[in-house]
């Protein structure tokens, strides 16, 4: 690889009050890679994502976005965040704006695009997630899956170099999960670099290039899905994945 990786994390530490949530995490994400992070709840996966776009400041460690060290002092954090897209578990759509306005507000106010340009691009992004006919609806009028897809469009509107997904389907009713995963899969096929925290094992197995298993603030093991699911190196990994796969596997069998 001659190009620098999109994301490089080195030796990250983060504590809240007395407990250490992230205990020395290092890894790399290459361009166009889809990396999925799995692990038991509360092991710092969300905190990790928030450190990456500096919504939370890590206590120790360095992060590089392409060739820039974003943890260096005097970095323009707002500018950095323009290059990182984030999708939240709770969607966090701007309630006082329509779907289209949610997508274009970043374009007009942050990227300083002209409103006509922004509107066109906004409609294009909504089209991309399959929601162009909902452009003028308010978040309160949308279903959970639709809200999340608008949130994805909003993040895409900023032309990010990498997309972070923080348990994007965990707050959704089961029948709505599919539409969001479908959009995410499409993005992956289009070549977007993605870092996804999720419990959706089907997605992890089919779409990811690499799976990272995190527990208690450490990376336990990482590797391509075939290896992680069928031939992991560590017992712990095998146990976790086996348990989860059994749970989800039964569900998938039922659906078939």
């Amino acid at each position, binding site marked *: 690889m001659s190009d620098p990786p999109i994301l490089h994390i080195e030796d990250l530490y983060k504590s809240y009050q007395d407990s250490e949530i992230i205990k020395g995490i290092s890894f790399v994400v290459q361009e166009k890679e889809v990396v999925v992070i799995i692990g038991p709840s509360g092991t710092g996966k969300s905190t990790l994502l928030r450190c990456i776009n500096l919504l939370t400041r890590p206590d120790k460690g360095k992060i590089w976005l392409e060739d820039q060290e974003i943890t260096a002092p005097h970095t323009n954090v707002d500018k950095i965040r323009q290059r990182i897209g*984030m999708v939240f578990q709770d969607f966090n759509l701007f309630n006082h704006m329509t779907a289209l306005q949610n997508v274009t507000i970043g374009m007009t106010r942050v990227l300083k695009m002209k409103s006509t340009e922004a509107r066109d691009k906004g409609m294009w992004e909504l089209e991309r997630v399959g929601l162009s006919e909902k452009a003028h609806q308010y978040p309160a009028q949308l279903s959970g899956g639709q809200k999340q897809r608008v949130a994805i469009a909003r993040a895409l509107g900023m032309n990010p170099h990498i997309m972070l997904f923080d348990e994007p389907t965990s707050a959704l009713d089961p029948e709505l999960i599919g539409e969001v995963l479908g959009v995410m899969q499409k993005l992956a096929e289009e070549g977007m670099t993605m870092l996804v925290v999720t419990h959706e094992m089907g997605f992890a197995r089919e779409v990811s290039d690499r799976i990272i298993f995190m527990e208690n603030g450490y990376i336990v093991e990482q590797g391509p899905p075939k290896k992680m699911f069928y031939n992991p190196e560590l017992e712990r990994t095998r146990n976790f994945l086996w348990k989860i796969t059994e749970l989800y596997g039964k569900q998938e069998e039922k659906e078939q």
Partner: protein
Amino acid sequence: MEFLQNLLLLFRYLIAGTWVTLGVTAIALSTGFGVGILLATFRVYGGAMLRTIAALYSLVIRAVPVIVVIFILYFVIARFVDLSPFLSGSLALGIASGAYQSEVFRGAILSVPPGQMLAARAIGMSRVKAIRYIILPQALRLSIPPWSNEAAIVLKDSSLVYVIGVAEILRRAEYVSARTLQPFIAFGAAALIYFSLTFLTNRALDWLEQRYRVLM
């Protein structure tokens, strides 16, 4: 017959005062609005010093009767600037109202879900932009009901500036009462007019609330 004629004259004279009352109320509410939003933003987003100053302002002014605040500010303003009683009274009322309005806006800002700020920062907005385009618009809509309450209070408190000589409804009623020696009718009429004003204002603000409701 003469009684009815007098009654009509009385009403016309009092209603002329309505414009003054509304003027005082409008100036006071807008001054208070500006002060209130500023203070509320300081208290939620400011550094330690701004937060303390804003909190102290709010606490001290709200602990003093409005009439006392009006008196003090009227005399203080009079020492430095030559303003009409109308303006100094309205501004004084506005400065007092600002403290109460800051509590309304502060509550509203704090009611905006924290995820909104996160999402705004996540797409690269600076703190100031996020407050301006995402937080405040929602906070303002949330604040309409308690603010309507405050607006009604300011409308009624506008009667207090009669003391410093502003020719609003109450002062005119007093004048009429002194001239006609029929205070009950004079003040009763004034009460009726105030009642209509508060009634109409409440209806108008209810409509505003319906129109701009934010559904979460």
